[in-house]
């Protein structure tokens, strides 16, 4: 007996026939091809989409002299000083609070106002509910109103103040297209039963309709939050006092101020990107499903592009 034969006898697995061996080979080849595909997927997603951010992160740990000496290499020595410098020079703490305020307040108000607008229309309580709906949709195709909005804000005293900015962003009344269709899926019998039991209208909307719409509202709220947090143009136009700036505006200013000090700018960018990255990591599933499930309608409302809502509805 040769050693290989002994080894074969000692093994628990049965001796393979040729057919089994061929099957095994096919399985191996498939496995190899699969891992090849895995490798490709990993290379594309990590190399093209994550690597730029990793590169940015690495720059943030460099001292300025070492960056100048070797701009594209690894940090040597590593330092944390850029983060503290960026934090104190950029005033990002205040700006984070502002950002949070500018993202949460309009988000919540838009949701509630949107439901109050959508509910009677989707129930058909007005003689021309469909016409009204069509009119709201149509208005989204009108010219962008950014410039008159700026003039209006100045006249109404909403320019360059926090409350004014919140009013401007909370009352644009979006989100509504998305809700009209959704509310139609909530049975009318619920309204009638609740009304019969003496439930008031506002109480009904808050305690029955809003909880019923939780999945839709959650998706809308996430997309709305991200859109408001990331808005650069509106703060750029409406807020000139730097203590009122949100982080996106703050980083834009910081970038302009420290143009070539890349380690410092990289640190500031990491600071600004971190919270939204955490939000993304936690809510990633919602966001991804939201896109697939047609939440495009929801995000479009906040992003002032109701055209997208219409496209996605079809």
């Amino acid at each position, binding site marked *: 007996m040769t050693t290989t034969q002994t080894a074969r006898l000692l093994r628990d697995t049965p001796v393979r026939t040729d057919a089994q061996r061929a099957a095994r080979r096919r399985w191996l080849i498939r496995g190899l091809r699969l891992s090849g*595909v895995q490798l490709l997927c990993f290379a594309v997603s990590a190399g093209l*989409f994550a690597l730029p951010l990793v590169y940015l992160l690495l720059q943030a740990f460099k001292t300025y002299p070492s960056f100048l000496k070797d*701009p594209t290499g690894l940090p040597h020595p590593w330092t944390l000083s850029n983060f503290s410098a960026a934090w104190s020079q950029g005033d990002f703490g205040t700006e984070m609070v502002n950002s949070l305020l500018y993202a949460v307040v309009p988000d919540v108000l838009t949701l509630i106002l949107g439901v109050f607008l959508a509910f009677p229309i989707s129930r058909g309580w007005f003689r021309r509910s469909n016409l009204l709906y069509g009119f709201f949709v149509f208005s989204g195709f009108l010219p962008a109103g950014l*410039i008159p909005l700026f003039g209006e804000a100045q006249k109404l005293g909403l320019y360059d103040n926090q409350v004014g900015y919140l009013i401007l962003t*909370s009352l644009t009344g979006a989100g509504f297209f998305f809700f009209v269709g959704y509310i139609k899926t909530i049975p009318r019998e619920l309204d009638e039963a609740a009304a019969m039991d003496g439930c008031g*209208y506002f109480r009904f909307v808050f305690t029955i309709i809003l909880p019923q719409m939780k999945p839709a509202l959650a998706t809308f709220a996430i997309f709305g939050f991200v859109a408001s947090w990331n808005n650069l*143009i509106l703060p750029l136009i409406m807020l000139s006092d730097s203590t009122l700036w949100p982080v996106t505006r703050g980083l834009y200013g910081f*970038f302009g101020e420290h143009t070539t000090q890349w380690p410092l700018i990289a640190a500031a*960018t990491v600071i600004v990107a971190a919270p939204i990255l955490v939000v993304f990591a936690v809510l990633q599933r919602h966001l991804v499903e939201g896109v697939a499930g047609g939440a495009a309608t929801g995000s479009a409302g906040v992003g002032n592009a109701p055209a997208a809502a219409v496209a996605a509805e079809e």
Partner: protein
Amino acid sequence: MSSSTTCPFGTRRTRRWIPWLSVAVPSLGWLVFGLYPSLATVYYSFTTYSGLPGTPMTFCGLCNYRDMFTSNYSQLSQAVVTTLEYVGGVTVLQIGLGLGLALLLQRRRFGYGLYRALIFMPQVFSVTIVGVLFSLLLDPSSGPAEAVYHSVIGGYSSFLGDSNLAIWLIVLVNVWMFSGYTMLVYIAGLRRIPPEVYEAASLDGAGAIRRFWKITWPLLAPSTTVNVFLTVMGSLGEYALILVLTQGQYHTQTLGMFMFNTAFGVNPDLGLGSMLAMVQFVLTAVIGGVLLWALRRREVSL
């Protein structure tokens, strides 16, 4: 609808007013901050107004239109050309890349959720973050793109400072940022195609490429409609990213950027800016209309 279409809430007296009350506040907000600014753009475009406190707004008829279509016509046509280049580039690349990624990552396999999430990730960042990131990567004196360019192609490029290159680089940044969205819409579309169709085609001896052109591509038509429409409309109105990357210099001044620079730049001119917003509106309406018509026709014919 058999049941009543009147509001069941409240007493007989309040019943009629409750729906109106419900829509009153949101509608008022929308009228003041949504509809009014949109319509006022038309009026603003017939005026001269710097927007600076204390300066008057004077009606001047078609002055802005006359100026733009005569003495400043080259600037306007350049902006329109740049916009079309931008929209065309973004749409072709983003649809191509999004579809490619979707075909690669459509299955439910180990790790694919993470890959999809990584590709979708840039979308949640603000244009400021993405703009700064790519300004770093494309920095002509110390960025990695410079190092690669120098060693592979040789010579030097100023990248975002190069008038022939800048707009196409911004196209790439835009595609990097949003192709995850296109991919997800396509994946949803791919998963709606019944597997039996592919099995039947395989039995008939159709190869992978044939299967793609004869089955996948036609059956993805609704997803393509959504993706093309959203991408074209989104990139037509885009200027925040361009603002961070080049501020419209080096032949990157799209119509939106031109509007922003005119209205809020060094010599603010809200009248002229509004006129450019009107041009943008007309361009968007025409392209959007033609696109919807063409995509619909295509869906039916496939």
